[in-house]
């Protein structure tokens, strides 16, 4: 409990200093309407929340991220396991993974919109695309990193090859999968904003783009602030989840 309070105090202090530096920078260093101080952004955020605009845009973006992220994870894990377990599968799929992962999701935005339209389809496709390769590569690396003695021990304790896979290789790979998911989540934030900036009817990225057109700098900063907070919270939740539900799989973290 004391440790927990200490951590919370650390975070609060960190955020307080961040806002303080921001405040000084915008009031003393760059005194300009183009760089609003934190209190004006917060006031604007409250306004937008009361109007219901902010909540709606956040929900839209987060729903896109979670749907695509879930899809990408569900596709990526079995593929990664197969690539890590069987050399044949690796040779067959490596051209896909090693070729496509170097084409950034942002480069695929135009194609995605042409294929799936300006609505949810293209966004979810892009999030799946940005998620799936990280998950595949991390999962496959995890399978390859299972200590050979773990497998040998299981075999000489009477486990069949299928049992070795499900009771040894799979649990030993969980920490790698979770790390892949954390990285993929960060990528999803980048991709969704880029996609919404370029072509969307709603979402935080669209909000930034529209605000730019009408020079609503405060509103742009609201979106940036919200993105930062959302990312921070999601990552904390993820880490908390790893500790609470999968801590026993990853004694290292």
């Amino acid at each position, binding site marked *: 409990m004391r440790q927990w309070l200490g951590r919370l105090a650390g975070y609060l202090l960190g955020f307080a200093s961040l806002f303080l530096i921001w405040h000084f920078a915008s009031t003393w260093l760059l005194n300009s309407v183009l760089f609003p101080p934190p209190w004006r952004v917060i006031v604007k955020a409250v306004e937008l929340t009361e109007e219901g605009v902010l909540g709606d845009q956040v929900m839209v973006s987060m729903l896109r991220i979670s749907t695509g992220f879930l899809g990408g994870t569900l596709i990526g894990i079995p593929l990664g396991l197969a690539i890590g377990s069987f050399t044949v599968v690796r040779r067959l799929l490596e051209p896909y993974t090693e070729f496509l992962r170097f084409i950034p999701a942002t480069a695929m935005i135009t194609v995605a919109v042409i294929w799936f339209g300006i609505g949810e389809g293209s966004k979810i496709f892009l999030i799946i695309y940005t998620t799936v390769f990280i998950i595949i590569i991390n999962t496959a690396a995890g399978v390859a990193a299972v200590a050979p003695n773990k497998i040998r021990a299981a075999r*000489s*304790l009477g486990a069949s090859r299928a049992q070795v896979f499900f009771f*040894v290789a799979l649990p030993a790979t969980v920490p790698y999968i979770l790390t892949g998911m954390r990285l993929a989540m960060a990528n999803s934030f980048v991709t969704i904003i880029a996609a919404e900036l370029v072509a969307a009817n709603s979402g935080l990225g669209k909000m930034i783009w529209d605000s730019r057109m009408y020079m609503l700098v405060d509103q742009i900063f609201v979106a940036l602030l919200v993105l930062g907070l959302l990312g921070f919270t999601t990552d904390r939740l993820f880490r908390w989840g790893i500790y609470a539900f999968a801590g026993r799989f990853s004694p290292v973290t």
Partner: protein
Amino acid sequence: MALVQLANVSKVYRSLRGTDYEAVRGFSLDIEPGEFFCLLGTSGCGKTTVLNMVAGFERATSGDIRIGGAAIDGPGADRGVVFQGDDSLYSWLTALGNVEFGLRMRGIARRERDRKARQYLELVGLTGQEHKHPTELSGGMKQRIQIARVLANEPQILLMDEPFAALDAHTRAAMQRELLSIWRATGKTVLFITHDIDEAIILATRIGVMHAGPASKLKGVVDVTLSESERDRTHDRFVAAYREVHEMIRDEVAISLQRAH
């Protein structure tokens, strides 16, 4: 009939460059049921290769390996293996989960395997640690889990690959005493790999000394007839046994050091 039979066994490893390395050549050994056989050799002499082949992890290039008269085909629950390091333990399972792993894989009912796992955890002195994960335990405790895990599976033969080499001297001595009392209580057949002459004399009923590698085989076998009280480094008969074994291995150490340079 001997329980473990190795007849004229050779093992050749092929490197990526295509050059061959012959680890053992013409290796023959019979181990009788209930024996505690220590295979002693310098580093790189191929003693682990022999154990890996008996365990079924590696296939002999030529020659014949039999357990109870039957040729081996891969690893099996009749041969329990204790490894040197702790990387064979399952970090996501508790001590209890690790010990009952083999029983679970073989479809033993929960209550029965729980009972057995606790029984063997008690035998290795880990009562009260059942629900700890391996990372929470010391090196000696982790090796105890490995031993309990193998014993709970009730194999015919224990294969131990320098299981105490990574432990500090005091823990090692304690573990050696415990292993001996477990061996006396269970009557298992043991093949124990070590490079430590003292350890071999403390534990073994017979010691097989290997030539320096490569293309190694047994140089000779020493019977250890010391009683329990005589298995003490300061005892005259212990010192005599040490001399005998040391005489045999001394030249091999020199050869292996020369080859390493």
